[in-house]
């Protein structure tokens, strides 16, 4: 396990642990960055944890291609199916909760108990969103009583490929809180992990890969948030961007770039977000379109 202790040399006679090479997650596979670059990830005290892949703009583009390819199948899956898969993610996470607690503790400099609590909250968040898959359409859609002989129904639909800049200050709970609402409704995602604390995100990819989630629905990149955010914000085949993990100044630039193909933009909250609080619908509805279908009523 990748705790700081595990990464130091063992005491005499103790077992030498097996370190993990952290990789990106793109299109259901685990590539290194095509650039061959890595960067050092340290714990809160500055101790080396791992060499994480430093994804390039080419990796970002590959991730968008994978996400686009996965969109038809994922958005076309039944809501029940998507809900089951999100719940499966929770099940798989539960089985590895100690590993994730250790990674979160190392990444965020938290006590064991606090890290455990945040990990548990992240698991519970998957469960919460899993349940929304087949309910959100009833809450935000519905029939419209038009003044004429017409059937008229409004339904939410996923907007497409969503680029997600994960929060920098909550490596797992924040990540899950921005990722789950994007995919539960049928969007596919390219996620940029917290720059200095990417390991929980990269490990989460291993969970996603074993949760029946089709490859490409979630793609996880680690590296420089600014470096990866720019090509994603400007990408013509990305439909929306969540700027949760962007600093204010680059966020403005990214929003401007996103206007080129009128991406839906979720701005970072200036006052920060309490990731432990119940999320509400906003992170789902921000990436939903409303489609309204008319048909005449008559014999």
């Amino acid at each position, binding site marked *: 396990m990748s705790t700081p202790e595990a990464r130091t040399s063992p005491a005499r006679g103790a077992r030498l642990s097996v370190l993990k090479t952290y990789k990106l997650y793109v299109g259901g596979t685990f590539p290194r960055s095509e650039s061959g670059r890595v960067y050092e990830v340290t714990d809160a005290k500055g101790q080396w944890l791992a060499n994480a892949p430093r994804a390039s703009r080419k990796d970002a583009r590959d991730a968008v291609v994978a996400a686009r390819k996965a969109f038809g199948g994922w958005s*076309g899956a039944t809501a029940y199916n998507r809900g089951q898969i999100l719940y499966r993610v929770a099940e798989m996470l539960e089985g590895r909760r100690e590993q994730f607690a250790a990674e979160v503790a190392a990444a965020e400099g938290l006590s064991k108990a606090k890290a455990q609590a945040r990990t548990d909250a992240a698991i519970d968040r998957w469960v919460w969103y899993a349940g929304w898959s087949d309910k959100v359409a009833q*809450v*935000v859609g519905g029939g*419209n*009583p*038009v*003044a*004429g002989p*017409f059937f*008229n129904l*409004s339904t939410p639909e996923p*907007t497409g490929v969503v680029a997600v800049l994960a929060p920098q200050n909550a490596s797992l709970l924040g990540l899950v809180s921005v990722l789950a609402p994007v995919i539960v409704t049928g969007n596919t995602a390219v996620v940029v992990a917290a720059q200095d604390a990417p390991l929980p995100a990269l490990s989460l990819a291993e969970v996603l890969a074993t949760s029946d989630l089709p490859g490409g629905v979630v793609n996880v990149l680690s590296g420089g948030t600014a470096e990866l955010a720019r090509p994603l914000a400007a990408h013509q085949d990305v*439909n929306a961007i969540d700027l949760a993990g962007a600093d*204010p100044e680059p*966020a*403005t*630039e990214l*929003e*401007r770039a*996103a*206007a*080129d*193909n*009128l991406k*839906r*933009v979720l*701005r970072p909250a*200036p006052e920060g977000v309490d990731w432990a609080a119940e999320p*509400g619908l*906003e992170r789902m509805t921000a990436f939903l*379109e*409303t*489609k*309204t*279908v*008319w*048909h*005449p009523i008559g014999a």
Partner: protein
Amino acid sequence: MNDQQSGSTTSTLFGYAPAPESRSVVDIAPSYGLFIDGEFREAAGGKVFTTRSPADEEVLSEVAYGQADDVDAAVRAARAAFETWSALPGTERAKYLFRIARIVQERSRELAVLETLDNGKPIRETRDADLPLVAAHFFYYAGWADKLSYAGCGPDPRPLGVAAQVVPWNFPLLMLAWKIAPALAAGNTVVLKPAETTPLSALFFADICRQAGLPKGVVNIVTGDGATGAALVGHPDVHKVAFTGSTAVGKEIARTVAGTDKRLTLELGGKGANIVFEDAPLDQAVEGIVGGIFFNQGQVCCAGSRLLVQESVHDEVLDALKRRLRTLRVGDPLDKNTDVGAINSAEQLARITELAEAGEAEGAERWSPPCELPERGHWFAPTVFTGVGQAHRIAQEEIFGPVLSVLTFRTPEEAVAKANNTPYGLSAGIWTEKGSRILKLANQLRAGVVWANTFNKFDPTSPFGGYKESGYGREGGRHGLEAYLEHA
């Protein structure tokens, strides 16, 4: 226009005599000021511009040209009014909106004539579509004003503040209603900029606000051009921007508000596909095709400007379509028998002309019914292009005029792929008798509004807005309120 244009025996036998609506129901003043803080006033810079009837280029009135100082004064007035307006009980705001709806109904004949004069669209449309929908919109949102806690924005939703609203010239008063009604119901105050070529109905609406006793500053109207709109959108004390217009300007606005806390909704261009299957009720489909592209001279963002017809019925549909187009009456917008009126401006006419020429140059085949156009004013004959390829400009770019591009398909999959193959995603039409096919296609089309076996239907309860580069946010229905409320 008249009998000889159709050339058919039937219309010679049953010809139409002119049936013009009387202009005397509307009294247009020689000049209008800006409507700020409940009063009409000259622009600070003293500049004016004229608005003309596109049907004959007659000057209708002179209108104040608002600039940054005027925009600032209007936003200040709206900001000052916001405190009391937003604090008013919802039931009181509702009653103001109900009053406005009623006065619109009372004055709808006058407003219909005014709109037809300033815009050039047929009186039959302003009378039967625009004005009834304007009143219905205010009626609908009036009822929301005291029910906001049921709107899905939390138990105690808050208005955003001053809404900057910029509306287009194709449905001047209807777009005003789409913007102002939900904004006021939610407790916001408004600065609205009407389009440069169609400012008059918004100024008449200012008078309706006065008749309704609406508190000063709640609605402000600043007339002008693109620069006026840019000043309004960029004003720092605006907290909500709503724009209907071109995708290019929409993108510019999105860049302007980047990094601010302004909420933005955009209702932009489209290149709607009207998909006709071989099993469709073809006579009804032809009516839908005609209404889809020639309603309001095709100057409609959700127009069905691309006809996708199944190969097996291509010739049959085209024959019927051409037969039908020969009976369209193009001419005097005030004539109650007119089907197709004037193009709104010389600038728009030039754009339509340019794109139609590009269609010919790229190899599509152009056809128009025999059609005598008036000598004065801006006119464009209903036009159909066949043999259009997906890469042609007339298949990709919004023409915003009475020009239909016809493409063919063989399978439903091909129809969907072609329909979705533009940067836009506002509207689509499906014509088939097969219910399961309608529902499947409706799911697959990336468009905000899908009309099945009908087209161009609108209702205040029904959310309207686009996917992709057709913009974001919805207008109409409960969804339309969300754009003007802060979750709380």
